[in-house]
């Protein structure tokens, strides 16, 4: 929750997850999101936030876990680092919330043709 003289603003975890999903799919090397837990592959909206978990700290900070599939043959450490930077940057920029951690889990590598 962000406070201002005009009142408070709340940003739902779902909204943050959408930002993460949109951003992650544009990160170079990411060819998909990995399903985690019960497979929720049915819905367009849910597909976008699949493999993304948002945690909220008591102090308003956000922690982000995302599970991705990366193209085979790329430098995984660098791809993960870019995802981490870009997701943290975009969430911070678009929500104004402090991003405490972005954990990138590369669940699989895939060879696209």
């Amino acid at each position, binding site marked *: 929750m962000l406070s201002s003289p005009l009142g408070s603003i709340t940003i739902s975890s779902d909204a943050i997850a959408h930002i993460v999903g949109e951003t992650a799919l544009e990160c170079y090397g990411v*060819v998909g999101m990995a399903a985690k837990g019960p497979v929720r592959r*049915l819905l367009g909206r849910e597909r976008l936030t699949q493999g993304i978990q948002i945690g909220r700290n008591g102090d308003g900070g956000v922690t982000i876990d995302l599970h991705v599939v990366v193209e085979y043959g790329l*430098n995984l450490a660098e791809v993960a680092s870019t995802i981490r930077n870009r997701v943290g940057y975009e969430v911070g920029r678009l929500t104004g919330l402090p991003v405490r951690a972005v954990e990138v889990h590369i669940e699989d590598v895939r060879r696209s043709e």
Partner: protein
Amino acid sequence: MTAATDLDAVQRVVGAALASLEASRHRIDDLNVYPVPDGDTGTNLTMTVRAVADAVEESSASDRRSLARDVARGALMGARGNSGVIFSQIVRGAADVLAETTNGVDPEIAARALRGATDAAYRAVRRPVEGTMLSVIRELAEEAESRTNHGTKLGDLLIELVRRGEEAVARTPEQLAVLREAGVVDAGGAGLLELVRGVASAVSGEPVPAAPPAEEHLSVEAIHQELSRYRYCTVFLIEGEGLDREQLEDRLEELGDSLLVVGDESALKVHVHTDDPGAALSLGTAVGTIDRIEIANMHEQTHQREERLLASVPEPDLDAEQAVTGIVAVVAGDGNRRLFESLAANGPIRIVEGGQTMNPSTADLLAALRTLETAEAILLPNNSNILLAAEQAALHFDRPVEVVPSDSIPAGLAAMVAFDGTLGAGDNAEEMRDAVEAVAVGEVTIASRDVQWNGVAIRKGEWLSLADGQPVAGGTSFEDVAGAVVDRLLAQPRDVLTLLKGADEQPLDGLLDRIATAHPSLEVDVQDGGQPHYPLLLSAE
């Protein structure tokens, strides 16, 4: 060609590319605003190409195929940053093509190598972003392919590629908004162009027109356009041994926000917004030596930018922020009520309970209109049976009011998306009517009697689906009947399908599976509408 000449040629070309890039490294660093404005693209790309040069230097390849493998591997292992990763994939794609050739490289082979590089680069990202290295390499491939039949020499082709590359880089701000806003071209694309320029001059033996002068100095701070809680944007480089990025991040986090620490054990680039840049620098000097320090007062920048904007924009009308128009909407179902309320942008909304079998009276609608405090109003009946009452109510209302003839809840929702309370009723009504007309609406209900309707035979108690008021299918299987109306709605290409679950909600898993399989790129949005009589309402836009 022998392996030794191959190796010599590759060494010479890579060396020339590296020298050309290094000369522009800082300029490219300063261009970097995407994907993250951390000002390290030139450095990352240079380190990546240097790794390729080292790999070529150390290569003991005895044939072209193993040389290509060494080069691709050097790029993969040495890739630094986002631009480095993309570059490594470009190198791999080109190397895969060149590995299978036997003669000297001619324009035809160069075109195929660039195509292979482009395909490899695009393949590794789910949503390629235009206005980046990706669009530049693609344009280079297209240029080369258009010049293979003209008896062109390789050197001449490369000079043409530099020209095309310059055009492609210059166009990146048109393709990517964040570049346009910051007033820069894409850093990765600019780096790729410098590499091609180096190769071109090495192969053609002619000087290739020089890179844009470095005096167009743009600092990282120039792109900070939003207000930060903190005053100073602080950027610096730490060089040392065994630098611990995570530990440094933890310490810096206490000082401010927008923190980025990138690099490796020997060099870290720090970007932080803080009120105490001195403390941030001290953290750097505690673990290594610091360099390339840039500190900018963002509040000053923001202030200057606002002054500029205010000078170019007429004084804002203070009243414009206040609602001019309010809405009265007839809605059934708690979920739908919430959806309507959430969509009432910049204006008040009053919901009148009602729908298919519960038609509010003219008096009900008039009473709701009178509770609005706005000067003008919009009335959304959301059912054809209520349209007449709505028009009567509008006639008796003493303020300007427009009836938008929405004949269903989904149509009403589409209209709500177009609503803006700061505009007058007339302007709103125009936008909202267009929105109602653009949306295709489906309904799934239970037939209340046996009917033969437009060739569709339906028995009482069976499922019945309608598209824009016309019957589509009837039967005992909810999924089949609902599936038929979905197919009808999606007969034209659509972007979004919204499903509103009724009070008597039916399991949707099978239907949603069908939709996901048949229309993988469609965005599907399921909401709890809670309306009676219609277990499912749909709209396609």
